[in-house]
Protein backbone atom coordinates (compact mmCIF):
# COMPACT_ATOMS: atom_id res chain seq x y z
CA UNK A 1 0.00 0.00 0.00
CA UNK A 2 1.46 3.30 -1.08
CA UNK A 3 1.47 6.30 1.17
CA UNK A 4 5.14 7.18 1.26
CA UNK A 5 6.23 10.74 0.77
CA UNK A 6 9.70 12.25 0.73
CA UNK A 7 10.73 15.90 0.62
CA UNK A 8 14.40 16.76 0.00
CA UNK A 9 15.88 20.19 0.40
CA UNK A 10 18.70 21.60 -1.74
CA UNK A 11 19.76 24.94 -3.20
CA UNK A 12 20.98 26.52 -6.38
CA UNK A 13 22.57 29.86 -5.52
CA UNK A 14 19.96 31.93 -3.71
CA UNK A 15 17.16 29.65 -4.82
CA UNK A 16 15.89 26.98 -2.43
CA UNK A 17 14.68 23.74 -3.98
CA UNK A 18 12.23 21.28 -2.47
CA UNK A 19 12.12 17.98 -4.32
CA UNK A 20 8.92 16.04 -3.69
CA UNK A 21 8.44 12.31 -4.26
CA UNK A 22 5.62 9.88 -3.59
CA UNK A 23 2.10 10.57 -2.40
CA UNK A 24 1.09 14.02 -1.21
CA UNK A 25 -2.29 13.77 0.54
CA UNK A 26 -3.90 14.94 3.78
CA UNK A 27 -1.66 12.51 5.69
CA UNK A 28 1.66 13.65 4.22
CA UNK A 29 0.90 17.33 3.52
CA UNK A 30 2.09 18.37 7.03
CA UNK A 31 5.62 17.18 6.06
CA UNK A 32 5.61 19.41 2.99
CA UNK A 33 4.17 22.24 5.05
CA UNK A 34 6.93 21.87 7.66
CA UNK A 35 9.61 21.91 4.95
CA UNK A 36 8.11 25.02 3.41
CA UNK A 37 7.84 26.71 6.82
CA UNK A 38 11.49 25.82 7.45
CA UNK A 39 12.52 27.72 4.32
CA UNK A 40 10.40 30.71 5.32
CA UNK A 41 12.02 30.70 8.77
CA UNK A 42 15.43 30.72 7.07
CA UNK A 43 14.34 33.82 5.16
CA UNK A 44 14.18 32.09 1.78
CA UNK A 45 11.71 33.66 -0.61
CA UNK A 46 12.78 32.14 -3.91
CA UNK A 47 11.56 28.57 -3.86
CA UNK A 48 11.33 25.91 -6.56
CA UNK A 49 9.19 22.85 -5.90
CA UNK A 50 10.47 20.03 -8.11
CA UNK A 51 7.84 17.33 -8.61
CA UNK A 52 9.29 14.73 -11.01
CA UNK A 53 8.93 12.00 -8.36
CA UNK A 54 5.51 13.11 -7.18
CA UNK A 55 3.00 10.48 -8.25
CA UNK A 56 -0.12 11.69 -6.45
CA UNK A 57 -1.49 14.97 -5.11
CA UNK A 58 -4.79 15.84 -3.46
CA UNK A 59 -6.14 19.22 -2.43
CA UNK A 60 -4.34 18.97 0.92
CA UNK A 61 -1.03 19.13 -0.96
CA UNK A 62 -2.22 21.93 -3.22
CA UNK A 63 -3.32 23.78 -0.10
CA UNK A 64 0.30 24.05 1.06
CA UNK A 65 1.17 26.05 -2.08
CA UNK A 66 -1.88 28.24 -1.48
CA UNK A 67 -1.12 28.83 2.18
CA UNK A 68 2.41 30.14 1.61
CA UNK A 69 2.56 31.79 -1.78
CA UNK A 70 0.95 35.12 -0.89
CA UNK A 71 3.34 35.80 2.01
CA UNK A 72 6.32 34.85 -0.15
CA UNK A 73 5.16 37.16 -2.95
CA UNK A 74 4.59 39.98 -0.44
CA UNK A 75 8.29 39.65 0.43
CA UNK A 76 9.31 39.94 -3.22
CA UNK A 77 9.78 36.24 -3.85
CA UNK A 78 7.83 33.46 -5.51
CA UNK A 79 7.21 29.72 -5.64
CA UNK A 80 7.90 28.16 -9.05
CA UNK A 81 6.72 24.62 -9.75
CA UNK A 82 8.44 22.25 -12.18
CA UNK A 83 8.59 18.73 -13.61
CA UNK A 84 5.01 17.64 -12.97
CA UNK A 85 4.09 14.18 -14.25
CA UNK A 86 0.94 14.29 -16.44
CA UNK A 87 -1.37 12.77 -13.83
CA UNK A 88 -0.37 15.37 -11.22
CA UNK A 89 -0.34 18.22 -13.74
CA UNK A 90 -3.95 17.40 -14.57
CA UNK A 91 -4.96 18.07 -10.95
CA UNK A 92 -3.11 21.41 -10.91
CA UNK A 93 -4.85 22.41 -14.13
CA UNK A 94 -8.25 21.20 -13.00
CA UNK A 95 -8.15 23.77 -10.22
CA UNK A 96 -6.58 26.55 -12.29
CA UNK A 97 -3.17 26.56 -10.61
CA UNK A 98 -1.45 27.14 -13.96
CA UNK A 99 -3.09 30.58 -14.01
CA UNK A 100 -1.74 31.55 -10.60
CA UNK A 101 1.69 29.89 -10.53
CA UNK A 102 4.62 29.61 -12.92
CA UNK A 103 4.64 25.90 -13.78
CA UNK A 104 7.47 24.80 -16.08
CA UNK A 105 8.81 21.56 -17.48
CA UNK A 106 12.19 21.19 -15.80
CA UNK A 107 14.38 22.41 -12.96
CA UNK A 108 16.72 24.41 -15.27
CA UNK A 109 13.66 26.14 -16.72
CA UNK A 110 12.45 26.99 -13.23
CA UNK A 111 15.85 28.46 -12.32
CA UNK A 112 15.76 30.45 -15.55
CA UNK A 113 12.25 31.63 -14.73
CA UNK A 114 13.58 33.21 -11.54
CA UNK A 115 16.17 35.05 -13.63
CA UNK A 116 13.65 36.41 -16.13
CA UNK A 117 10.44 36.61 -14.03
CA UNK A 118 11.51 36.59 -10.38
CA UNK A 119 8.13 37.80 -9.20
CA UNK A 120 4.64 36.78 -10.18
CA UNK A 121 2.92 39.20 -12.52
CA UNK A 122 -0.63 38.60 -13.62
Amino acid at each position, binding site marked *: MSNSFVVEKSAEGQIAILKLAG*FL*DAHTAPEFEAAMQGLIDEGKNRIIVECSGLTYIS*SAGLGVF*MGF*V*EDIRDRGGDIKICSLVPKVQQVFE*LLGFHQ*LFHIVGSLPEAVQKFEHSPVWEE
Partner: protein
Amino acid sequence: MATIEKRFVLQVPSSTRNLALVREFVGSVGQQAGMEASEVAKLQLAVDEACSNVIEHAYCHDDTQEVVIRVSFDDAEMRFDVIDTGCCFDPHAIAQKDLDQLIAERRKGGLGLRLIQSLMDEVQYEIEPGKKNQLHMVKRLRKDPTA
Protein backbone atom coordinates in the same frame (compact mmCIF):
# COMPACT_ATOMS: atom_id res chain seq x y z
CA MET B 1 -31.25 -6.88 -20.51
CA ALA B 2 -30.90 -6.48 -16.75
CA THR B 3 -27.38 -5.87 -15.50
CA ILE B 4 -25.95 -7.30 -12.32
CA GLU B 5 -24.90 -4.81 -9.67
CA LYS B 6 -21.68 -5.50 -7.77
CA ARG B 7 -21.32 -3.98 -4.31
CA PHE B 8 -18.30 -3.36 -2.09
CA VAL B 9 -17.88 -1.81 1.37
CA LEU B 10 -14.82 -0.53 3.23
CA GLN B 11 -15.00 0.69 6.83
CA VAL B 12 -11.90 2.38 8.27
CA PRO B 13 -10.96 4.38 11.37
CA SER B 14 -11.16 8.11 10.74
CA SER B 15 -7.46 8.77 10.25
CA THR B 16 -5.58 10.24 7.32
CA ARG B 17 -3.20 7.25 7.52
CA ASN B 18 -6.03 5.19 5.99
CA LEU B 19 -6.36 7.36 2.87
CA ALA B 20 -3.89 5.10 1.04
CA LEU B 21 -6.09 2.10 1.91
CA VAL B 22 -9.16 3.95 0.64
CA ARG B 23 -7.40 4.73 -2.67
CA GLU B 24 -6.35 1.10 -3.08
CA PHE B 25 -9.92 -0.05 -2.45
CA VAL B 26 -11.38 2.40 -4.98
CA GLY B 27 -8.64 1.54 -7.48
CA SER B 28 -9.34 -2.15 -7.19
CA VAL B 29 -13.10 -1.74 -7.69
CA GLY B 30 -12.53 0.70 -10.57
CA GLN B 31 -10.37 -1.89 -12.31
CA GLN B 32 -13.05 -4.52 -11.82
CA ALA B 33 -15.53 -2.16 -13.44
CA GLY B 34 -13.26 -2.06 -16.47
CA MET B 35 -12.26 1.59 -16.20
CA GLU B 36 -9.09 2.95 -17.74
CA ALA B 37 -6.21 3.80 -15.40
CA SER B 38 -6.65 7.56 -15.91
CA GLU B 39 -10.33 7.33 -14.97
CA VAL B 40 -9.57 5.13 -11.96
CA ALA B 41 -7.11 7.80 -10.76
CA LYS B 42 -9.87 10.41 -10.86
CA LEU B 43 -12.17 8.22 -8.76
CA GLN B 44 -9.39 7.62 -6.24
CA LEU B 45 -8.82 11.37 -5.92
CA ALA B 46 -12.54 12.16 -5.53
CA VAL B 47 -13.05 9.56 -2.79
CA ASP B 48 -9.79 10.60 -1.09
CA GLU B 49 -11.11 14.19 -1.01
CA ALA B 50 -14.47 13.07 0.38
CA CYS B 51 -12.82 11.01 3.15
CA SER B 52 -10.33 13.78 3.94
CA ASN B 53 -13.25 16.18 4.41
CA VAL B 54 -14.97 13.74 6.77
CA ILE B 55 -11.79 13.19 8.81
CA GLU B 56 -11.07 16.92 9.10
CA HIS B 57 -14.50 18.53 9.26
CA ALA B 58 -17.01 15.90 10.46
CA TYR B 59 -14.75 14.11 12.96
CA CYS B 60 -12.16 16.83 13.66
CA HIS B 61 -9.36 14.20 13.39
CA ASP B 62 -10.91 11.94 16.06
CA ASP B 63 -9.53 8.56 14.93
CA THR B 64 -11.84 6.59 17.22
CA GLN B 65 -14.61 7.30 14.70
CA GLU B 66 -15.23 5.43 11.45
CA VAL B 67 -15.72 6.28 7.79
CA VAL B 68 -17.71 3.94 5.58
CA ILE B 69 -17.15 3.83 1.82
CA ARG B 70 -19.72 1.97 -0.25
CA VAL B 71 -19.09 1.41 -3.94
CA SER B 72 -21.30 -0.31 -6.47
CA PHE B 73 -21.33 -0.57 -10.21
CA ASP B 74 -23.24 -2.04 -13.09
CA ASP B 75 -22.84 -1.57 -16.83
CA ALA B 76 -24.06 2.01 -16.68
CA GLU B 77 -22.34 3.70 -13.74
CA MET B 78 -20.28 3.53 -10.57
CA ARG B 79 -21.85 4.84 -7.38
CA PHE B 80 -19.94 5.92 -4.29
CA ASP B 81 -21.26 6.73 -0.83
CA VAL B 82 -19.00 8.15 1.86
CA ILE B 83 -20.80 7.96 5.19
CA ASP B 84 -19.96 9.36 8.61
CA THR B 85 -21.75 9.97 11.89
CA GLY B 86 -19.84 13.12 12.80
CA CYS B 87 -21.02 16.68 13.05
CA CYS B 88 -22.70 17.88 9.92
CA PHE B 89 -21.13 20.68 7.97
CA ASP B 90 -22.22 22.47 4.87
CA PRO B 91 -19.53 21.58 2.34
CA HIS B 92 -20.84 24.14 -0.11
CA ALA B 93 -20.07 26.94 2.34
CA ILE B 94 -16.34 26.18 2.19
CA ALA B 95 -15.99 25.76 -1.53
CA GLN B 96 -17.53 28.74 -3.20
CA LYS B 97 -14.56 31.12 -3.36
CA ASP B 98 -12.27 31.63 -6.33
CA LEU B 99 -8.77 30.21 -6.11
CA ASP B 100 -7.13 33.66 -6.19
CA GLN B 101 -9.42 34.75 -3.36
CA LEU B 102 -8.45 31.72 -1.26
CA ILE B 103 -4.78 32.43 -1.93
CA ALA B 104 -5.18 36.10 -0.95
CA GLU B 105 -6.72 34.91 2.34
CA ARG B 106 -3.80 32.46 2.93
CA ARG B 107 -6.36 29.65 2.97
CA LYS B 108 -5.12 26.08 2.65
CA GLY B 109 -8.51 24.46 2.22
CA GLY B 110 -11.66 24.84 0.21
CA LEU B 111 -10.62 22.93 -2.89
CA GLY B 112 -11.76 19.41 -2.05
CA LEU B 113 -15.40 19.70 -3.03
CA ARG B 114 -14.47 21.64 -6.16
CA LEU B 115 -12.26 18.73 -7.20
CA ILE B 116 -14.98 16.20 -6.42
CA GLN B 117 -17.47 18.16 -8.51
CA SER B 118 -15.13 18.33 -11.47
CA LEU B 119 -14.22 14.63 -11.26
CA MET B 120 -17.68 13.11 -10.76
CA ASP B 121 -20.85 13.30 -12.86
CA GLU B 122 -23.23 13.66 -9.91
CA VAL B 123 -22.58 14.82 -6.34
CA GLN B 124 -25.23 14.98 -3.61
CA TYR B 125 -25.16 15.44 0.17
CA GLU B 126 -27.71 13.86 2.46
CA ILE B 127 -27.54 15.06 6.03
CA GLU B 128 -29.61 13.46 8.78
CA PRO B 129 -28.78 15.68 11.77
CA GLY B 130 -27.56 13.65 14.73
CA LYS B 131 -27.54 10.42 12.71
CA LYS B 132 -25.35 10.44 9.65
CA ASN B 133 -23.96 12.42 6.75
CA GLN B 134 -23.74 10.79 3.35
CA LEU B 135 -21.97 12.06 0.26
CA HIS B 136 -23.31 10.33 -2.83
CA MET B 137 -21.24 10.46 -6.02
CA VAL B 138 -21.86 8.92 -9.42
CA LYS B 139 -19.49 8.32 -12.30
CA ARG B 140 -21.04 7.17 -15.55
CA LEU B 141 -19.15 4.48 -17.37
CA ARG B 142 -18.29 5.33 -20.93
CA LYS B 143 -18.35 2.01 -22.62
CA ASP B 144 -18.41 1.54 -26.35
CA PRO B 145 -21.94 0.17 -27.03
CA THR B 146 -20.66 -1.67 -30.09
CA ALA B 147 -17.93 -3.48 -28.11
